[in-house]
């Protein structure tokens, strides 16, 4: 009964999105306030229906209702409750339900926090979001119904893929989807503005916080995925340039470009049509990512026994959504206008450079991801493009990007002079070179990559400090004013600085791991020890342990440094009872200075095991840097001007609506 209720409310939701996607849009075109006013309640109703449906799915999982095919294929009575709940988004069907829930949630959030938006704008945005939801609802109902029944009812389920039985499963997909689907808000703002024909600084100010929040979620989601792959999949690295990773990285790159171009649109009114195009691209790439992951053109933990019908459906959906948006863009964008002029050396031109580099990066990732797929589908041979290509392309792009990252915030809007900028940044440049040289000398093992990475790191830090100093330096040399001025810094500026420092932390982590990472595979009998980078690992032997739904062999290694105990490490080799897959559960000792990473390989003879030992300096800085970026974004969104202007424009909007009604 519960499954049918969930299924039924999805169909009701289709009805609601049909209304939401048409009536308010028509109302906005004709100036009918009664039709426009439907948008908000319809959005809330949509969220309610999808929440009910999602709750039904979770209930089916919690109650082990194996008469539901989805539950039978992805759960098991032995599966701990936490993972039974997370299993509801562990399958293809379930993950689409999560997508729908997020989509409806974002739409409801726009409805709730959009009191300051003029009614027609609000109606158009919610309508567009309704249409996007409709396409996904149809996708779920027509190709991937999570509530399908199975008969005869199996006694036991086939269990969740062991690799997904991890706390990462509970948090990574929701975060990532918040980001993916959050791009639809920017998309809807852009499309609504194209339909309405009013793109101005005000529009950019409305759209900016939404985009930044979605970007922050995407950042955290990708970082979590990377961290998860690092510790759970046992690959030991943090990024593999796998097609699925790239699928999430492309929208991130475009979203990053978008939040920077929005800054120009808001502050200077320039880059308008470019901003709109980026907003359309961002969501399109989210859809493309979905297509790549869900259609079965690539196979991984994320893709499931695939059905060509699904791939085709997403492809058609992608074509319609992107095609319609781009057609609208081609038709309306010429009216948008170009905005204020700026000179070759100005903050605008720096941000333009940022955008160009980010899009080149997107193009490079797309080439490396799609070209092998296209070649293969045309039967022209099989190739793979691995990390060497992406590394070769990304390091120079990032270097240029980071160079401009230092200049951009220092440059003045509209026009700046090169000599003056050089003078203002001379200390930063000096500090960068000296600290990079010092660090490289201390670390040893100097390579081009490590030098470039260190220069990038210190360039960001020192240019952020230079900017901070310019902003807080008291005019008359009164030292006591520094703290006061520090407190007066706008949150948007602080947020930007924090995010940029996050990039520095990230780059530092990447550089250190890339340069000083040590991997050692050793055959060890009980009592054997080996020393890696000053750490002595002593193997104590193994013991058998039983988990809730797996059996494992657990190794024990004692790690010492200079005779002092560092940690006891317990790597495991697990066999999950239902799916019979072996799983390597790495043991990781994580500290600020770096991680020790130990994996059980395979037994050679008796008690002798192959053990893999990794020493990874500063690896956790990579994820901490991403977290800083996201925090910076969120902090910037709380800036006063979004709230103050919001209240002001609210009264203006109410006035306008009142006159429109009359």
């Amino acid at each position, binding site marked *: 009964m519960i499954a049918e209720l969930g299924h039924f409310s999805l169909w009701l939701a289709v009805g609601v999105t049909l209304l939401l996607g048409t009536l308010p849009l028509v109302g906005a075109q004709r100036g009918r306030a009664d039709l426009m006013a439907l948008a908000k309640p319809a959005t809330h109703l949509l969220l309610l229906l999808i929440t009910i449906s999602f709750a039904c799915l979770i209930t089916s999982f919690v109650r082990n209702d194996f008469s539901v095919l989805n539950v039978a294929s992805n759960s098991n009575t032995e599966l701990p409750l936490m993972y039974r709940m997370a299993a509801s988004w562990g399958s293809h069907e379930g993950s689409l339900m999560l997508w729908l829930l997020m989509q409806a949630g974002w739409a409801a959030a726009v409805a709730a926090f959009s009191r300051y938006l003029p009614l027609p704008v609000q109606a158009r945005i919610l309508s567009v979001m309704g249409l996007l939801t409709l396409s996904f609802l149809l996708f779920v109902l027509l190709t991937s119904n999570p509530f399908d029944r199975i008969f005869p009812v199996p006694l036991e389920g*086939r269990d969740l893929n062991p*690799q997904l039985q991890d706390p990462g499963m509970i948090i990574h997909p929701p975060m990532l989807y918040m980001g993916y689907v959050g791009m639809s808000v920017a998309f809807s703002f852009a499309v609504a503005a194209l339909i309405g024909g009013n793109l101005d600084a005000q529009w950019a100010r409305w759209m900016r916080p939404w985009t930044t929040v979605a970007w922050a979620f995407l950042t955290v989601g990708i970082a979590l995925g990377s961290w998860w*792959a690092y510790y759970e999949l046992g690959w030991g690295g943090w990024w593999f340039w796998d097609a699925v990773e790239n699928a999430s990285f492309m929208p991130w790159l475009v979203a990053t470009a978008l939040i920077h171009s929005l800054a120009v649109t808001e502050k200077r009114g320039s880059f308008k049509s470019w901003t709109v195009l980026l907003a359309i691209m961002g969501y399109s790439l989210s859809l493309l990512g979905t297509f790549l992951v869900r259609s079965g053109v690539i196979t991984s933990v994320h893709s499931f026994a695939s059905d060509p019908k699904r791939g085709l459906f997403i492809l058609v959906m992608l074509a319609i959504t992107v095609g319609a948006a781009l057609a609208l863009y081609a038709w309306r964008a010429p009216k948008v206008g170009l905005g204020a002029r700026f000179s070759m050396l100005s903050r605008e031109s720096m941000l333009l450079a940022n955008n160009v580099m980010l899009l080149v990066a997107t193009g490079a990732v797309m*080439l490396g991801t799609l070209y092998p797929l296209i070649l*293969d589908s045309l039967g022209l041979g099989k190739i*793979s493009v691995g990390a060497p*290509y992406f590394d070769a392309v990304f390091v120079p792009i990032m270097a240029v990007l980071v160079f401009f990252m230092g200049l951009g915030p220092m440059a003045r809007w509209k026009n700046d002079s090169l000599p003056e900028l050089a003078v203002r940044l001379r200390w930063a440049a000096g500090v960068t070179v000296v600290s990079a040289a010092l660090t490289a000398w201390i670390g040893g093992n100097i390579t081009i990559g490590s030098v470039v990475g260190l220069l990038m790191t210190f360039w960001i830090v020192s240019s952020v400090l230079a900017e901070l100093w310019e902003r807080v330096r008291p005019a008359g040399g009164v030292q006591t004013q520094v703290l006061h001025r520090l407190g007066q810094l706008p949150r948007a500026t602080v947020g930007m600085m924090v995010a940029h420092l996050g990039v520095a932390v990230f780059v530092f982590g990447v550089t250190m791991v890339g340069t000083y990472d040590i991997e050692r595979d050793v055959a060890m009998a009980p009592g054997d020890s080996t020393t890696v980078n000053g750490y002595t690992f002593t193997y104590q032997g193994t013991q058998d342990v039983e988990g809730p739904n797996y059996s494992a062999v657990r190794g024990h290694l004692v790690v010492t440094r200079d005779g002092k105990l560092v940690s006891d490490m317990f790597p495991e080799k697990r066999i999950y009872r239902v799916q019979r897959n072996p799983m390597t559960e790495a043991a990781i000792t994580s500290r600020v200075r770096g991680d020790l990473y130990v994996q059980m390989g*395979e037994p050679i003879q008796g008690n002798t095991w*192959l053990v893999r030992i990794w020493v990874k300096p500063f690896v956790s800085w990579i994820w901490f840097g991403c977290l800083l970026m996201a925090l910076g974004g969120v902090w910037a969104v709380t800036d006063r001007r979004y709230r103050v202007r919001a209240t002001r424009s609210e009264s203006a909007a109410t006035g306008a609506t009142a006159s429109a009604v009359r």
Partner: protein
Amino acid sequence: MKLRHKRLAMIGGVLCAAGITVALLLNAFQSNMVFFYSPTQVAANEAPTSRTFRVGGLVETGTVKRDGLHVNFVVTDTAKTVPVRYEGILPDLFQEGKGVVAQGQLKNGVFMAREVLAKHDENYMPPEAADAIEKARKGQSRLDQSMVKSGAYGAKP
């Protein structure tokens, strides 16, 4: 006049930069492409000798021999075979009789693998892989056609 020259120079500069970027990008792409060859193709000397490539098929039963850190095994597409040597720990899902893809270089008839990728999920066989093995069993050795859908092996989530 001056302004126009300046603009022309700017446009020229941008075009140059774009051209160089694209050239570098494509160059990096080309020099890092890794091709896939089936054991039959390797046996027919179609595979390059001094370039990294991938070879894939099934791990022939009874051929996996471990010698300390080193491991030797034979990859087959049921028509021809390639001996593979690898140093280190094999992935969890590496098993005799199961699918595998190795990346490395050919040296004196032995494939020196630097990376060994195994299938992700024991129960799930990509339809194209099943199809390919079926074809290979018929002696057509068409494994290369679809066995390794770029990410079918060793793809990270």
